[in-house]
């Protein structure tokens, strides 16, 4: 009872420095947790994200470029492949489903991806297909479009609306096509990159006015679902080792993991910066309490004169530092949620990959424990000063 009272009173008596120091802990702790969670979740989300497919077949190129273009709808297409290649792989006994896609146009920055209605039979997650939530699927050969949920929301398009696409993967207002598409449906959210795409019939992209005539018989890639994922090894051997015209990117997770492996150093730098900020914040606890020790000497002497043991005073100072960190870390969760929500919004807007700021991660326990522990440790230095306070000298002048 006595120790909490002494700590609470001291926090209140030094309210401004308590608030400022707790705020610095909140910012540092929030940043530390956010860096860790965004890093880990984005790594997991990208490497586990395959949009329901096991592999991608495309023109000869780096596997990563192929996966980024065909699965994540990022990057430029590495080139086209003839329709016959789609027919070949679709007939392969190891393949459960082959989905041709063609890219090359956009509407206000959101990609138009031409494909077949087989899209709607793909399970992007166990038991969950790409289902039209509003309206209906597009019909092959018609100028109809089904929008991913995120694209529809951002573009403010609804069923029945009409739009004219623009040429190229990047939006250029001078490159508008003449064709007019009607929105027939909007997909339910899948939390995959498909949410950011405007899906149209394959023929739409192939026959768009202004496209190369060759495009009518070509596609950009084939998304492949295998009957047995292990069968990918023989297909990889066939396309990558024995041929030199096409690339078979399999397994998708490993291809993306290689990307994260290449930028692992960046993660390390971010971690280091976050820990440095945390160290500076706990240092501010030390500085704040230490600098106020002179004005606390009289109170300490009075407490000692009332019978408080020196180790009680020591403990009170350490607990005060820990209490500032506790207050700071409570606020740190608000900072964490703010940073993570902003990061998640940006990542979702750019890639369609969804992060969940409310998902559990061990850092959400470790960071508060570490910050509170470090702050208590930082409190040892002013606590030693408090412990050594000369009671007689600080009570009344010696006569």
């Amino acid at each position: 009872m006595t120790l909490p009272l002494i700590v609470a009173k001291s926090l209140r008596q030094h309210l401004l420095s308590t608030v400022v120091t707790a705020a610095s802990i909140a910012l540092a702790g929030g940043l530390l947790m956010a860096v860790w969670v965004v890093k880990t979740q984005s790594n997991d989300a990208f490497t586990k994200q395959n949009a329901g497919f096991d592999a991608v077949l495309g023109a000869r190129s780096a596997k990563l470029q192929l996966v980024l273009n065909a699965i994540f709808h990022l990057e430029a297409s590495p080139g086209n492949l003839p329709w016959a290649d789609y027919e070949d792989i679709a007939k392969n006994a190891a393949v459960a489903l082959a989905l041709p896609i063609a890219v090359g146009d956009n509407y206000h920055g959101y990609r138009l991806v031409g494909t077949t209605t087989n899209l709607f039979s793909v399970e992007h997650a166990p038991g969950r297909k790409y289902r039209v939530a509003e309206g209906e699927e597009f019909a092959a050969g018609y100028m109809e479009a089904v929008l991913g949920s995120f694209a529809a929301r951002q573009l403010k398009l609804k069923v029945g609306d009409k739009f004219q696409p623009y040429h190229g993967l990047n939006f250029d207002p001078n490159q508008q096509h003449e064709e007019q598409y009607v929105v027939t449906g909007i997909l339910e959210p899948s939390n995959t990159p498909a949410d950011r795409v405007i899906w149209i019939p394959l023929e739409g992209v192939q026959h768009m006015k202004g496209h190369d005539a060759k495009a009518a018989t070509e596609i950009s890639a084939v998304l492949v679902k295998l009957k047995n994922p292990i069968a990918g090894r023989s297909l990889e051997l066939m396309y990558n080792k024995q041929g030199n015209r096409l690339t078979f990117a399999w397994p998708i997770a490993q291809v993306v993991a290689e990307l994260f492996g290449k930028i692992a150093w960046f993660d390390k730098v971010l971690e280091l910066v976050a820990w440095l900020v945390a160290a500076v914040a706990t240092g501010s606890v030390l500085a704040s309490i230490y600098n106020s020790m002179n004005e606390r000497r009289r109170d300490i002497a009075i407490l000692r004169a009332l019978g408080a043991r020196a180790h009680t005073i020591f403990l009170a100072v350490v607990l005060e530092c820990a209490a500032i960190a506790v207050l700071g870390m409570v606020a740190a969760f608000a900072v964490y949620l703010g940073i993570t929500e902003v990061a998640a919004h940006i990542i979702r807007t750019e890639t369609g990959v969804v992060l969940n700021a409310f998902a559990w991660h061990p850092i959400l326990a470790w960071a508060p424990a570490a910050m509170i522990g470090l702050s208590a440790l930082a409190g040892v230095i002013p606590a030693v000063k408090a412990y050594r306070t000369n009671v007689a000298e600080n009570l009344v002048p010696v006569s």
Partner: protein
Amino acid sequence: MPLLQISQLKKSYAAPDGGTHAVVDVPEFQLKAQAQVALSGESGSGKTTFLNLIAGILAPDSGSIQLNGLELAGLRESARDRVRATTIGYIFQTFNLLQGYTALENVLLGMSFGPGADREFAKALLKRVGLGAKLNHLPRQLSTGQQQRVAVARALANRPKLVLADEPTGNLDHANAREAMALIREACRENGAALLLVSHDREVLGQFESVQELGKLNRAAK
């Protein structure tokens, strides 16, 4: 057996010239249980150091301080703290109230390190000193006389056997000083505590049956 028995008590401080400066050198002093004794002493007579030695705030260089049968001089600092928390009440000239704490909290702290907080007893003490309506006032919200009353209540909060008072009326006007002295003496009597008071105020000293001159008691006094 007296409550307080002091013999050959010495305390010196380091002097600026590198030598030592004797402040207390008391060959003999006794105080009976529940007795009320005043020590008269001017500045430099070592009165505060003498009281701090008895309270265990300072450790003597040599000599003996027996309080309630316990030898304080040989005790470690933490043990002296314990004795102070359970056996001694201290009233200071400057009151030494904790400014961030209410009157009630100041009194509660007076018992927290010893017998433990007893809210009802703390309230009763404040009521006894006439502050029953100002339990939650901070020291700055009280007059000087009222602050001294809180200090008196706090000194009695741990049910001490001995109350030490160092110039307790030094910061009060005559009327308040007279009232405060009466209160201190009555409160000590009611609670069965002995009172050892040092002062240089003749009016205060005049209220005591037993007055000793610290200048004569302390051979180190100037």
